[in-house]
């Protein structure tokens, strides 16, 4: 199981900020994104988001372990 965090337009479209997803782990970031789209649906912009694993930006091929927190990061607009 991985914890998924959503923000901004993604959270708004999904109607939630936190979801848990059951899947075979370890897996790649890319596989988590794929699984997420199968389970939750293709949220607008989901393919263009960065992904953070446990509060650090990650690459597509980085490894996700059971219990990790995966955040989808839409283009930021702070400041």
């Amino acid at each position, binding site marked *: 199981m991985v914890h998924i*965090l959503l*923000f*901004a*337009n993604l*959270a*708004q479209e999904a109607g939630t900020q936190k979801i848990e997803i059951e899947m075979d782990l370890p897996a790649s970031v890319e596989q988590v994104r794929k699984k997420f789209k199968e389970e939750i649906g293709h949220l*607008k*912009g989901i*393919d*263009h988001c*960065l992904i*953070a694993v446990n*509060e*650090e*930006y*990650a*690459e*597509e091929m980085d490894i996700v372990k059971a219990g990790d927190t995966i*955040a989808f*990061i*839409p*283009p*930021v*607009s*702070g*400041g």
Partner: protein
Amino acid sequence: MKLFEICNAPIQTQDVINKVIHHNSGAVSVFIGTVREMTGEKQTQFLQYEAYVPMAEKQLEKIGEEIQTRWPKAKAAITHRIGTLQISDVAVTIAVSTPHRQDAFEASRYAIERIKEIVPIWKKEHYRDGEEWVGNQKGNVSYPLGHPEGIEK
């Protein structure tokens, strides 16, 4: 004292400045981002900022480390507010002190550019005639290199 901080309450700019003034600083460059009413023809009524708070504070600290590397004598502090902000409210205050003024200006400017690149904070504009998450309304904005420039893993 937390040098890099996400907060919900109004930002006290003087508090941020006080964090960086010390006996060998001679210059402090402060950047304050405020909520502007007009953007082109669009009239903002209020804004909402949302953050991935623990990660955003880590990223602000990372900007602090980058500044330390580039301007070793600089001391920086950044506070970014989230929640609902009205016109003229302060969204972000950056303060950088250095011995000499040129470095202070450059480091302060560097900090605001980096905030806009790597810190997970999102702004929702509430206009007179609608609302949008800035930079991503159409869901087709992406980071050109797959990740914000200069993020180190």
